[in-house]
């Protein structure tokens, strides 16, 4: 896995606002294609690198220069895990919408939306919390020192 560097924690929250908007648009339109695109984005971030997140670049070029610098950094591993959780929900939702199991699509997408909104509005990253709990029990997830 490529190395990700610690990130400015406001970046993921900025991304989460855009993700929330995308997921809300999916729920309002029922478009499996839009949800599939979001699933691809989640997958790229989770399985390849957080650097592939276009909203992260938008944050760095458009937002970060305008806000106060911060020394605060966030560990990338929990973020990537959380993107992976988002990927699973988006994938299940896409399958639901695309195969006519609309209820499945709505449930999976609204769960992902609630998680994205919590991250954006409250700063609580559910996937990250799950990762941290898992890391206590699975030593191989521990940060290499």
């Amino acid at each position, binding site marked *: 896995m490529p190395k990700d560097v610690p990130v400015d924690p406001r970046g993921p929250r900025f991304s989460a606002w855009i993700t929330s908007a995308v997921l809300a648009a999916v729920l309002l339109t029922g478009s499996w294609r839009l949800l599939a695109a979001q699933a691809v984005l989640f997958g790229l971030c989770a399985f390849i690198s957080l650097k592939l997140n276009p909203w992260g670049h938008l944050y760095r070029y458009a937002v970060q220069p305008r806000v106060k610098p911060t020394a605060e950094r966030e*560990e990338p591993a929990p973020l990537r895990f959380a993107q992976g959780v988002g990927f699973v929900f988006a994938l299940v939702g896409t399958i639901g919408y695309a195969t006519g199991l609309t209820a499945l699509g709505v449930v999976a997408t609204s769960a992902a939306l609630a998680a994205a909104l919590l991250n954006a509005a409250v700063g609580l990253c559910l996937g990250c919390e799950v990762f941290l709990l898992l890391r206590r029990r699975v030593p191989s997830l521990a*940060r290499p020192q």
Partner: protein
Amino acid sequence: MSAGAWAVVAAVAVTAVVAVLLRWREGRVRVGGSSGPELPEAVRAALDPGAAVTLVQLSTTFCAPCRHTRVLLSDLAGRVAGLRHVELDVTNQPEVATRLGVLRTPTTLALDASGAEVLRVGGVPKRDVLLEALRPHLPHTNG
């Protein structure tokens, strides 16, 4: 409204409820908890037997509220007689947090000289509320 629109409303409502609950819990003083029959060795070692109350702050790396808590508590300990503040990084010793029943950082345990838990606070403590709760356990001088 379509099912999708209702789902959006529901997701927003869930987020709002969780936000309110988290804000309510943040920095709240909880009394009556127990750190268990035996303190983990790392915590026992951090305890200052000469202080009436030691604030043991459990922290992790990459934890912004931990830094805010450290500033607040070390300042408080500097001003209040009988109060000490120590920070314990549990990033690489999660078993300490597990044994204390701590799920988030920062969590601050207030322990008396014998190591018994007086109270605990999850998140950044509220200075006045914390001091008020600690007062009965501190020598009656200032604060």
